[in-house]
Each structure stands twice: as structure tokens, then as C-alpha cells.
């Protein structure tokens, strides 16, 4: 099958072109580095099946980070390259184009964001560009689909091999200068409202208060939306479901099957949070507790991503992140990690060096609570008052900063500085936001529900075999002596490896004081990543670095848990 590779600078719309060509759905945002791994799909162009790969964005074929390495490797097996070029930024983009031409692969240029270029007063003579480069140039507006048909038609034609002229750097820039002068006309334009907003959100004096407002608003939106959804949508649905599951419970009677499927009744009836059955807690936790917040979070995330706000936030936070061995772009894994640590861990690839990625990944797993962890924190502590929830978040925040500073000191390696292109602000499109939210929801359900079921099955087996009681005794010096928790809490810690949100149902029945719960929840959040994140970290860091990261996590979790115990409860 013919292999077509999409190549281009970061944030030029390769993924949008990919979606348009294949009909496959991939995540698209308005910031450089959304595609850190490649996506692939097959499609049929005029009866011919082709294989299309969406490479991560790259400025050059001499890679300077992991995503660029991936892009450069993919290029080697390409039969045809579609070079996606940002028409609003022709001069810079042509550098990669000329490098690609030097590789001697058949090439088609998609001159994307054609409409935006025209609006900003840039006129490009596509026909003339085609003559100068000796390869087809197709103007496209991938977000609306304009020009994609032409592009697809061009891909099935036999494209003459470009003459592989390898230019030195100086010659290349001279050539680019010459080409841009010949094909591009720029009309000067005045500072628009969008430019003023752009400046205001990136300058510290105005930008920092705006950033605080945006973060507070986002948080408020997620909590409010989640609560409304739970009270008015999911809880009523589960109340309708209750008689059904109660009837089923009466029918299967008692025994192992009943405790696995239905669980233990609390106060004479099924308790969706605490019964720990697959059909009760196993359904209620993901759909009734976590999903509403996930929906809210991903809507908010999509709005922030697609508007182009994230790179500005990265600029504002750079000074702080730099002290932690990363740079401002370290905000991207944190931001995505607040939804789910799995995409967060993948996004550590936006950082350049091994040291930076190690710090980002370790801190992510320790101190960035995903929505499942956040639901657990609220689910367990919310009823005792918001102050207890805030203690946990404050502790996580402090741990992020302190562990970051320490890791930056002790880990050897380079910490390159921020070097980031800031995209223009764009209005998020409703259909894109909806689609992205939907894709992420599906990913959450597919990933979370099996582990929850598995976790519940596991708990019941461990409970039935007496393993949990034995473990409780074994760990009692640590759990009781050091953290000041009942020994039975060790079961929740153990199960936290599969799904942290399951711990809600396991901690609540133990009758602990709010202070004890704060210690338990903080330790549980930090001590180990969930199994999904663990798998991604294994791939991203390798076994040796993962072992180190886990060492840091366990030491930090129990150290901080112990310190909090002494602060909150005394000796």
C-alpha cells in the first residue's frame, strides 16, 4: 500500500488535514506539539487504498526533540510526502519544505490556512510558487474542508520526483528570501483587538491577573457543571436503576457471586459508593461520580486549547517552571494531567531533554490529581467541609514545587530554555470542541471501566481469601504507627494502584476522622500512579528511570503523609 506522510512545522494544521483525508478522529488543538506521537489511518483515494501517517510537527529534519525524531524517522519510509505549510507564515515554513525537497521524495504542498492569510493581508501566488518549487501547490482551508478534494486528487497522480538539490543553510535562506519576495504580497495592517488581547495576556502585569481569573473560572465551571450534572442527571438515573439491581440482588441471594456483582449492603440497602459490587459501585463511580467532572473538564480544556491560550500561560509560568528544571511548556503535561494522567504523561514529550521529561513525569504522577483523584478527594472530604479539600490541594501544590526544586538540583542533565511559537487567538469551533470532548470521554470510559471492574473483583477475592487482613497486619507499623490510620485502610492503598477512585468506597466505611481522611487521601493520591499511567511511564521513561520515579513517589508520599499526620493530629 502506498504510504503518504503529512509533514510540516508545528501547529500548521496537519492533524486537521489528516482528519479530513481519512475521516479518522485525532485530537486537534491550537498549540504547537499537540501530536507528540504519530497517528495513522487508511483511506481510499480514487479506488486506491493508501496509508496515511500524521507526523508530529517539526521545524527541521535534524531533530532537536523526541517528537521531531519521530517525524524524521517516519519520513524514511514515505512514498509520498504532503508538506502542510502555514500560509500566514510562508517564509519560516519554506525552510522545512526545501529540506524535504532535498530528500528527493515525491512531494505535494498543502498551502493551509489560506483564508486566515487573506484576512491578515497576505496574498500568495500559489501558481507561481508551484513553478518555482516544481511541485504541486494546493491552497487549502482544512478546518472547513476547502481544497482537500484537490489535494486528494493530486496525491493519486504520479508526481515527478523533485530534483534532490541539497542547499547549505545560507543558500537556503537566500533562496527562501527570493521565493517569498516573488510570490507573496503583504499589506500592512493595524493592531486589531485580537492583537491587543494577545499582548495583554502575555505581559506579566496584565497577564498574571488574567491567568488567575481564567484558572479560577475554569475550576468553578468544572465543579459547578459536575455537581449540577450529578444532581440532575446521573443521580436520578441511578435511582431509577436501584429497584432493578435490588431485585437482582434478591434473586441471586448471598454468596461470592453476590458480593462480586452487588456487594455488601450498607444500612439495609445498596449503597452505590460503598457496596463495592461490579454492578453497583463499579458502574456508579465511573459514570455517576467521575464522568460528570470529566465532561466539564474536557469542555473547558478544549476551549483553552483551541483558543490558543495555553502557550501564553506557558510563557507566564516559565519563570516558575524554570526553577523546577523544566520550562514554561511544562504546563502542558500538568494541564492535560488534571484530566487524566495518561495523556499528561505522553505530553511530557513536548520537553526536550531526558532530565526535563523525568522531572515532568515524576511530578505529574505525584502531585497532579487527575479527575478520578479529584473526584475521590471531593467524594471523601467534601462532606466535611471545603477546608479539608483545600488542605489536600495545597499539599499537592507545595509538593510539586519542593520536589521539583530538589529533583532539579540532584538530577544531572540539561535544562534547555523555553523557545515557543505563540499562535494567534482563534475562536474555538463548537463542532471541534464537541468532537474532542466526545473522543476523550470514550477514551476515559474504555480505559477506566475495565480497571474498575477488575479492581472490584480483586478486592473481593483478596477479601475472601483473607489476604487483606494479613496485609493490614503486615503494614500496620507504617499505616497505624506512622500515618495514624486504621490498619484496614491499607486495602484502599493497595487497590489505589488499579483505580484511585475506588478508594472512595473503601475509605468511607472505615469511620475515620476528617483529619485521618486528609492524610489517607493525600498519601493515596501521591504514592503510586494508576496502572494506566504506569504503563505509559514505562514506555516513556524506560525501566530504570521509572524505578527511580517510583522510589521518589513512595518516599515523598509517606514522608508527606507522616508530616501531615503530625501537623493535623499531633503525636
Amino acid at each position, binding site marked *: 500500500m502506498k504510504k503518504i506522510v503529512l509533514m510540516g512545522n508545528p501547529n500548521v494544521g496537519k492533524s486537521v488535514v489528516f482528519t479530513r483525508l481519512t475521516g479518522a478522529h485525532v485530537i486537534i488543538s491550537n498549540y504547537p506539539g499537540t501530536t507528540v506521537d504519530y497517528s495513522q489511518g487508511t483511506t481510499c483515494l480514487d479506488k486506491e487504498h493508501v496509508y496515511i501517517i500524521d507526523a508530529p510537527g517539526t*521545524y*527541521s529534519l*535534524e531533530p*532537536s526533540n523526541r517528537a521531531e525524531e519521530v517525524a524524521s524517522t517516519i519520513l524514511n519510509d514515505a512514498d509520498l510526502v504532503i508538506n502542510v505549510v502555514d500560509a*500566514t*507564515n510562508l*517564509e*519560516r515554513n519554506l*525552510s*522545512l519544505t526545501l529540506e524535504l525537497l532535498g530528500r528527493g521524495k515525491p512531494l505535494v504542498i498543502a498551502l493551509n490556512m489560506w483564508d486566515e492569510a487573506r484576512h*491578515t493581508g497576505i496574498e500568495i501566488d500559489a501558481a507561481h510558487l508551484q513553478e518555482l518549487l516544481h511541485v504541486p501547490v494546493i491552497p487549502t482551508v482544512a478546518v472547513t474542508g476547502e481544497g482537500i478534494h484537490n489535494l486528494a486528487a493530486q496525491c493519486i497522480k504520479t508526481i515527478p520526483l523533485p530534483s534532490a538539490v541539497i542547499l547549505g*543553510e545560507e543558500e537556503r*535562506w537566500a533562496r527562501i528570501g527570493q521565493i517569498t519576495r516573488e510570490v507573496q504580497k503583504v499589506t500592512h495592517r493595524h493592531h486589531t483587538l485580537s492583537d491587543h488581547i*494577545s*499582548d495583554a495576556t*502575555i*505581559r*506579566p502585569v496584565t497577564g498574571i491577573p488574567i491567568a488567575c481569573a481564567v484558572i479560577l473560572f475554569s475550576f468553578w465551571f468544572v465543579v459547578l457543571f459536575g455537581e449540577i450534572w450529578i444532581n440532575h442527571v446521573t443521580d436520578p438515573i441511578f435511582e431509577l436503576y436501584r429497584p432493578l439491581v435490588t431485585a437482582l440482588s434478591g434473586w441471586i441471594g448471598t454468596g461470592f457471586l453476590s458480593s462480586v456483582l452487588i456487594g455488601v449492603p450498607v444500612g439495609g440497602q445498596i449503597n452505590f459508593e460503598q457496596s463495592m459490587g461490579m454492578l453497583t459501585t463499579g458502574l456508579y463511580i465511573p459514570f455517576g461520580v467521575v464522568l460528570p467532572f470529566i465532561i466539564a473538564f474536557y469542555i473547558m480544556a478544549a476551549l483553552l486549547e483551541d483558543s490558543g491560550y495555553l*502557550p501564553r500561560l*506557558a*510563557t*507566564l509560568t*516559565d*519563570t516558575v517552571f*524554570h526553577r523546577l528544571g523544566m*520550562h*514554561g511548556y511544562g504546563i502542558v503535561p500538568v494541564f492535560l494531567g488534571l484530566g487524566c494522567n495518561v495523556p499528561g504523561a505522553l505530553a511530557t514529550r513536548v520537553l526536550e531533554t531526558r532530565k526535563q521529561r523525568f522531572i515532568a513525569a515524576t511530578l505529574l504522577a505525584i502531585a497532579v490529581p487527575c479527575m478520578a483523584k479529584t473526584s475521590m478527594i471531593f467524594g471523601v472530604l467534601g462532606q466535611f467541609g471545603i477546608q479539608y479539600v483545600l488542605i489536600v490541594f495545597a499539599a499537592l501544590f507545595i509538593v510539586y514545587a519542593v520536589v521539583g526544586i530538589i529533583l532539579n538540583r540532584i538530577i544531572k542533565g540539561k535544562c*534547555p*530554555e*523555553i*523557545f*515557543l*511559537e*505563540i499562535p494567534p487567538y482563534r475562536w474555538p469551533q463548537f463542532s471541534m470542541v464537541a468532537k474532542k470532548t466526545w473522543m476523550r470521554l470514550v477514551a476515559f470510559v474504555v480505559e477506566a471501566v475495565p480497571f474498575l471492574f477488575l479492581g472490584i473483583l480483586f478486592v473481593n477475592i483478596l477479601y475472601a481469601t483473607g489476604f487483606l487482613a494479613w496485609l493490614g497486619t503486615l503494614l500496620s507499623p507504617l499505616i497505624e504507627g506512622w500515618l495514624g490510620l486504621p490498619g484496614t485502610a491499607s486495602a484502599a492503598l493497595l487497590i489505589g494502584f488499579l483505580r484511585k477512585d475506588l478508594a472512595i468506597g473503601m475509605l468511607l466505611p472505615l469511620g475515620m476522622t476528617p483529619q485521618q481522611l486528609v492524610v489517607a487521601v493525600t498519601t493515596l493520591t501521591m504514592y503510586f500512579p494508576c496502572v494506566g499511567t504506569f504503563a505509559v511511564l514505562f514506555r516513556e521513561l524506560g525501566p530504570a528511570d521509572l524505578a527511580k520515579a517510583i522510589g521518589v513517589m513512595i518516599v515523598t508520599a509517606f514522608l508527606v503523609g507522616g508530616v501531615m499526620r503530625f501537623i493535623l493530629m499531633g503525636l
Partner: protein
Amino acid sequence: MPISISDLQEGVTATVRELRGGLGFQKQLRTMGIREGKTIRIVTRHPFGGPVVVDVDGKMTTLGRGIAGRILVEPQQ
């Protein structure tokens, strides 16, 4: 006499004269639009050794202070 852009105040416009540092680094700057002869505007300079944001050809780029220090420019009047 060219000076580095990390010494320029917010709002100043200048012409890029020289890039310092390794060849790979210089190349990276050029592919992101920062090249000899280009006009550069300082959008902002963050305090406490924070990044410098520049505007070249209507596109903004955030540069760490060390990177900014290796871009030498001549302020325009």
C-alpha cells in the same frame, strides 16, 4: 554597536544583526523567523530572569532569557 535583546525594554523595535551560539542553535532561531536583517519588536520582558516575548513578521515567539541574550540587535529609531 549591537546589544542583546535581553537588554531591551518593552515596546522597542530593533534590527537583528548577529546570532551567537552553536550552528544548530542558530539554525533553530532562523527557522523560527529570527534571522539577520529581520525587524524584531519586544512585546514584553518578564521579571526575575523570565522569558522575553518578541514579535517578528507579526508572529510572537517566547524566548528564554539565555536564548534572548544570544540575539544581538541594533535598536531602530
